[in-house]
């Protein structure tokens, strides 16, 4: 995906002017947010589980290397080939080589933010490999030539009417007017692809170091089809997804679906443990696990920002964020949007080209309040702002204004003088003010003084 994080302000402005997007976002975020609240109210131990989840992630990060080694060994025991990729390029190359070596021309994919991150589809298409996203939302976005705008509901920005027109144009089906017919059309189209595909590519929500079990959570069943029918299954997983074992997994499973969609558990959870066995009738013959670093170990060593690696990609922070709710995912300019996107994207792409993202927050703390693994997102955003400042990422005028502001705040005389000047200026030249803004007759201090003469 082309990086457009530099154009955040323009993209956000555009989103703010898009009425249909505004409506779709407020409906979706409100609905999913309420579902989540209800699901958490029904789980009395939720707060304790969130503490536990934070602790587990924190402990894993302390010895991530040894968990990864353990995972590598246990995966190999299951007959899974493990490849460690330092970056996006290496991961794409590895998968492309595999495709060429096996003579594969058609690939099906189930939703994976990690493969969005490495721009895998673009690389595959460049090499003329047919690749189909199979999650309905991702499929819609792919047909439209766009990118996902929400972690859980990728096509949140598209109306049913737009989807009907898109399907009619691209799939040659009638202009359907119910979600059922549209879903059925996608089902029929993709069904054929699962059976024909030589390779299924998926992400993984968790990997158990002890047993090598890969865990995929979903609702549609497309990940099950992608990981069951094609002969070859490739898993692309960020290294931070490893956890010790089953007892830790249970903690996350109880939190994940509740946070993402308000369900107790998602419709499907698959624990995958190596290729299909001789006595089994299906399952892939070969599984490759690509363990992706792509900047993660750098974040790991940055102790202040390390908690951003705890993220489960549940999307809960997006739904409650007053900024995301207005501008949607595309404005952020890269794969991850919302509060967590503003936190991790600058760490992946570098601070200077992403400096608007950590600024695009009111620091209201709603994200931290819902995060299932208690990532202190507002604290991390503040740290990032501080670093942007240290790297000279703000303009001379902004810096000068801030210095002046700090000075006035610590010098009452100058504060009163400046405020009084601003008030007089505003009264004298009202045309200089933004539309609808008027200044009062008195400053606050004057008003207070008049009201309380003693």
């Amino acid at each position: 995906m082309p990086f457009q994080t530099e154009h955040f302000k323009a993209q956000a402005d555009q989103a703010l002017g898009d009425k249909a997007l505004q409506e779709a976002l407020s409906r979706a975020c409100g609905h999913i947010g309420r579902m989540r609240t209800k699901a958490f109210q029904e789980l009395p131990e939720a707060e304790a589980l969130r503490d536990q989840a934070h602790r587990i992630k924190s402990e894993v990060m302390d010895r991530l290397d040894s968990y990864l080694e353990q995972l590598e060994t246990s995966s190999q025991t299951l007959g899974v080939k493990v490849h460690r990729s330092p970056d996006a390029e290496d991961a794409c190359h590895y998968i492309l080589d595999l495709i060429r070596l096996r003579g594969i021309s058609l690939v099906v994919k189930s939703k994976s933010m990690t493969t969005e991150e490495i721009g895998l589809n673009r690389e595959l298409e460049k090499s003329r490999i047919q690749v189909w996203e199979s999650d309905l939302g991702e499929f819609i976005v792919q047909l439209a030539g766009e990118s996902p705008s929400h972690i859980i509901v990728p096509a949140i920005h598209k109306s049913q009417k737009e989807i009907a027109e898109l399907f009619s144009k691209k799939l040659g089906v009638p202009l359907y007017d119910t979600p059922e017919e549209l879903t059925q059309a996608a089902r029929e189209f993709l069904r054929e692809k699962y059976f024909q595909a030589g390779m299924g590519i998926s992400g993984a929500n968790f990997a158990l170091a002890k047993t090598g079990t890969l865990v995929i959570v979903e609702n549609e069943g497309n990940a099950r089809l992608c990981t069951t029918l094609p002969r070859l299954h490739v898993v692309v997983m960020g290294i931070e997804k490893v956890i010790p074992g089953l007892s830790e997994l249970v903690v996350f499973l109880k939190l994940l679906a509740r946070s993402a969609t308000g369900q107790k558990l998602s419709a499907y959870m698959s624990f995958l443990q190596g290729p299909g066995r001789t006595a089994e009738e299906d399952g892939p013959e070969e599984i490759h696990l690509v363990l992706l670093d792509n900047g993660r170990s750098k974040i790991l060593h940055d102790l202040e920002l390390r908690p951003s690696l705890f993220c489960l990609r549940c999307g809960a922070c997006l739904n409650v964020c007053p900024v995301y709710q207005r501008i949607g995912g595309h404005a952020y300019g890269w794969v991850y949007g919302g509060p967590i996107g503003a936190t991790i994207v600058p760490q992946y792409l570098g601070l200077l080209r992403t400096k608007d993202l950590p600024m695009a927050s009111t620091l209201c703390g709603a994200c931290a309040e819902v995060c299932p693994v208690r990532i202190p997102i507002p604290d991390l955003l503040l740290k990032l702002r501080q670093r942007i400042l240290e790297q000279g990422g703000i303009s001379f005028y902004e810096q000068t204004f801030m210095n002046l502001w700090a000075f006035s705040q610590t010098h009452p005389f100058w504060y009163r003088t400046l405020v009084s000047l601003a008030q007089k200026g505003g009264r004298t030249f009202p045309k200089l003010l933004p539309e609808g803004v008027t200044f009062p007759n008195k400053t606050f201090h004057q008003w207070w003084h008049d009201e309380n003469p003693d």
Partner: protein
Amino acid sequence: MKIQTDLLEQLEKELSELQVKTYRAESREDLLKILEAVLTASHSQNVALEPRALIQELNLEETLQKEGRHLLGFNPKDRKAMLRETDWKLVRTIEAGLGGADYALADTGTLVLFSKNSSGRWISLVPKIHIVLLPLECILSSLDELCSKLDLVGDLSSFGSAITFISGPSRTADIELNIVMGAHGPKELHVVTLLFPITGLGSKGNVQCY
């Protein structure tokens, strides 16, 4: 069995919230009636049986087989011909899959399938209708209870290449948040709890073996 029947009630409540149809079979004859009704109502003409010990033991093949219905039974040759060798051509024609579950979790309405016992995964995945036979004693209270059982075994891979947790039919909400069933997997899920004992099967150590 006081506790089991309480769990069954809780399970059925959760399942119906997930839009799963639930039934109770008091006897084998009862079960056959239920199955006949489900298959007829869904116009399922091609039905595949899961080669799981429970399904084999129940000996349903002969009775379910009738005019106008094609049944894929347990003959390994027939089954092999259905699978990869023929590019799944026949598998695609199957409308209903009849299988079992190794466990059910009452508090979330979840079915647990070990691919080792179900001889793979496609019966619960590819057909539009998925019918699950669940022995009453396989109902557990929660994910926690299941995991403590699995933990006793330690080696998760002994349950097969996949442990699948199913909570309701395949679903999506990707078009304006409208919930639609049957996105990619089964559109209908039917769970029949078996209240009668099944001879020849039972628990083996900590993990039941059906």
